[in-house]
């Protein structure tokens, strides 16, 4: 919910905490989002012990080297974002556009890689309804993927705004807020990666 509402009334920056409403909203939303992911991951953890004994389950399907690569791509995208933000803060618009586009591209690459995994699973006969692993895996990672996709659209929107000259140094906060979101989505993936992929199933 990327609201761009400004608060009603007087001086733009006279908030009680000194943090703008938009940024405070993003922080609050992320607190909520933690609980969305927390619930999904908790559910996954509860189902986890049952998954080891499945005929086709995580032990047969998960490709850790490949998903590590994708994780690496996503992590690096956060770095690219930071470079973009700092470019904007130094007034380097071209640099910002390049780095934010790179970020978005890496996000797309991640999505592509994950879709590739999905298709591979599908070929093995694992669907969202085939067993508890299919259900929990697709819904948990799928929920994350929706977040990444929204992030990519958001980033591309920022690049577009920048081309149209509507994203100056004075509203670099718009980029910062997108960054909060992007980094959050990134960190959540680390948690998912750890619990879904890395910790062995027994």
């Amino acid at each position, binding site marked *: 919910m990327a609201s761009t*509402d400004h608060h009603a009334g007087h001086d733009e920056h006279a908030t009680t*905490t000194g943090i703008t409403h938009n940024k405070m*909203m993003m922080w609050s939303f992320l607190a909520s989002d933690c*609980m969305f992911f927390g619930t999904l991951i908790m559910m996954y953890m509860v189902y986890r012990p049952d998954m080891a004994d499945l005929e086709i389950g995580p032990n047969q399907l998960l490709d850790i080297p490949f998903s590590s690569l994708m994780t690496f791509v996503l992590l690096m995208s956060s770095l690219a974002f930071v470079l973009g933000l700092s470019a904007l803060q130094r007034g380097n618009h071209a640099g910002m556009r390049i780095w934010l586009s790179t970020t978005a591209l890496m996000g797309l690459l991640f999505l592509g890689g994950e879709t590739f995994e999905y298709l591979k699973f599908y070929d093995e006969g694992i669907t969202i*309804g085939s067993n*508890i692993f299919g259900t929990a895996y697709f819904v948990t990672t799928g929920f994350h993927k929706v977040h990444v996709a929204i992030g990519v659209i958001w980033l591309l929107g920022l690049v577009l705004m920048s081309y149209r000259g509507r994203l100056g140094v004075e509203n670099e906060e718009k980029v910062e807020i997108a960054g909060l979101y992007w980094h959050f989505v990134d960190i959540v993936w680390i948690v998912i990666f750890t619990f879904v992929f890395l910790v062995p199933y027994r």
Partner: protein
Amino acid sequence: MAQAVAAKEEQTDRWAIIWDWITTSDHKKIGLLYFWTSLTFFFVGGFLALGVRSQLAVPNSTMISPDVYNQFFTMHALVMIFLALMPMSVAFFNFIIPLQIGARDVAFPRLNSFSYWVYLFGGILLCSGFLFGDAPDIGWTGYASLSSAQYTPGASGDFYVMGLQVLGISTLAGGLNFFVTIINMRAPGMSLMRMPIFVWMTMITVVLIMLAFPTLAIALFALMMDRNFDTVFFSATEGSVVMWQHLFWIFGHPEVYILILPAFGIISEVLPTFSRKPLFGYSFVVFSGIAIAFLGFGVWVHHMFTVGVGPIPNMVFSTTTMLIAIPTGVKILNWLATLWGGSIRLTTAMLFAVAFVGMFTIGGISGVMHAAVPIDYWQHDTYFVVAHLHYVLFGGTMFGLIAGTYYWFPKWYGRYMSESLGKIHFWLTLIGFNLTFFPMHFLGVDGMPRRIYTYPSDYGYELWNLVATVGAYMLGIGMLLMVWNLIKSVRSGEPAPADPWDGRTIEWTTASPPAKHNFDATPQIRARDDFWDKKYNRTDEAEPPADEHIHLPPGSYVPLLVSFGLMLMGAGVIFTLWISVIGGIITAVGLFAWAFEPND
């Protein structure tokens, strides 16, 4: 109402006035929209309750078929909780919070109007099951595997899932909005420990909303996937039927505190005002509120003692549940101490506030009985629980909200509500309430299960069921009286000044009803009960000069559009998916317009 509108512009045209209400982003108007809508839904819920009570008045009754009965009690609870009591709390947040913190509006006015419209459309979606004769009939808790497509085929389960999902969006958006508002928009000088208690309790409530509603959203999402897309989250063979209960109650217990904390806040305003004393132990009341919220996330298994999670978890959750009685007890005793030595004026608002303390205590004590696990092996799913939940929800939350209505009505409309009607309303309600719900304890002792559409005649349940039914009708008459009082007072109530009750907090410094911009000058806060302090201790203080550039955001129809799209998206899952597609397009277009709509 008339004045508020006239104050804005010369709008004589009726359609212009309606358009103004539809597109408004003024927190006061949105608050009134919330109030009247939730009151309407309260009557829908009450009507269903009367259906339930009429059916149960005599044994072996065949007045209502079992199928319809199950829809009635399920929808009764859903409507009361999600469409009446919570939104009525939000009505108070809307009207009172910006005034109490000295702000012009909430942080995101259009998001606020969005919340309202999503609430309205979500409510319509949830209730529209009745139009198809297929309203949810699985209990408000929707336990798996009864809620699966196998055991509840057809649309009723989907109305439950999608209705609540859409309503959750409204609640979450509202919660985030008010969190930012309270954190960020307090008048200069209003430190956290100078905030009025109602603001404090609201803040705790919205934090609970932010942290609890996501769990419900995920649970509903998983249920939707199970029902419509073949996943196996809650299947008995592959997933776990008990998982649903865990998710539901991880949300559900914080939810009951979401329902009660605003009422705690209201009571903590009303009791001091009419005792002419500050709240006793302000910081203890604040911190006990925080403690309740914190503990509230660690007690959910007390709804599942009979599930067989094992003796050790049962012991742990029994302990945490009892711990909650400590901060709640602190609150009760502080309210008593506030009354003690005061100069008490028994207005209707005060009567309801005092009765709140008494009735909530009864409900709280029966809650502690449930918390003793072996006793819950007996009381669980009997009418003892029904008694408990109505003592805390009606005797607690609803009494609090009614007290708040009588208390702040003069601020809303610049008129008093009738006190003589109010007193009759109060006594009818107090007596009717106890007649309805106290006998349910006896029924619980006699082992009457809840959620049964009929009972045999030789079990000894007749007398108390009949008494409860009589009580329910009495309550109904009381509530009708309140509505009459409201309508009469809006039209022709005695005019009220800015400060009708000798109030303590700054919403009473501004006109009744307040001007569109709330305060001519941004208030400067020097003390906890700032207005009282100013009246009695700083009498020679000069008025600050009025602010010069008061800027208010224009109205917008976009929130309405987006929420309509959301409702269609939900409806599509129930009927056919192309409705979802249309809804998605409307939502997307609306969001796009929202992002680029000039708002200054």
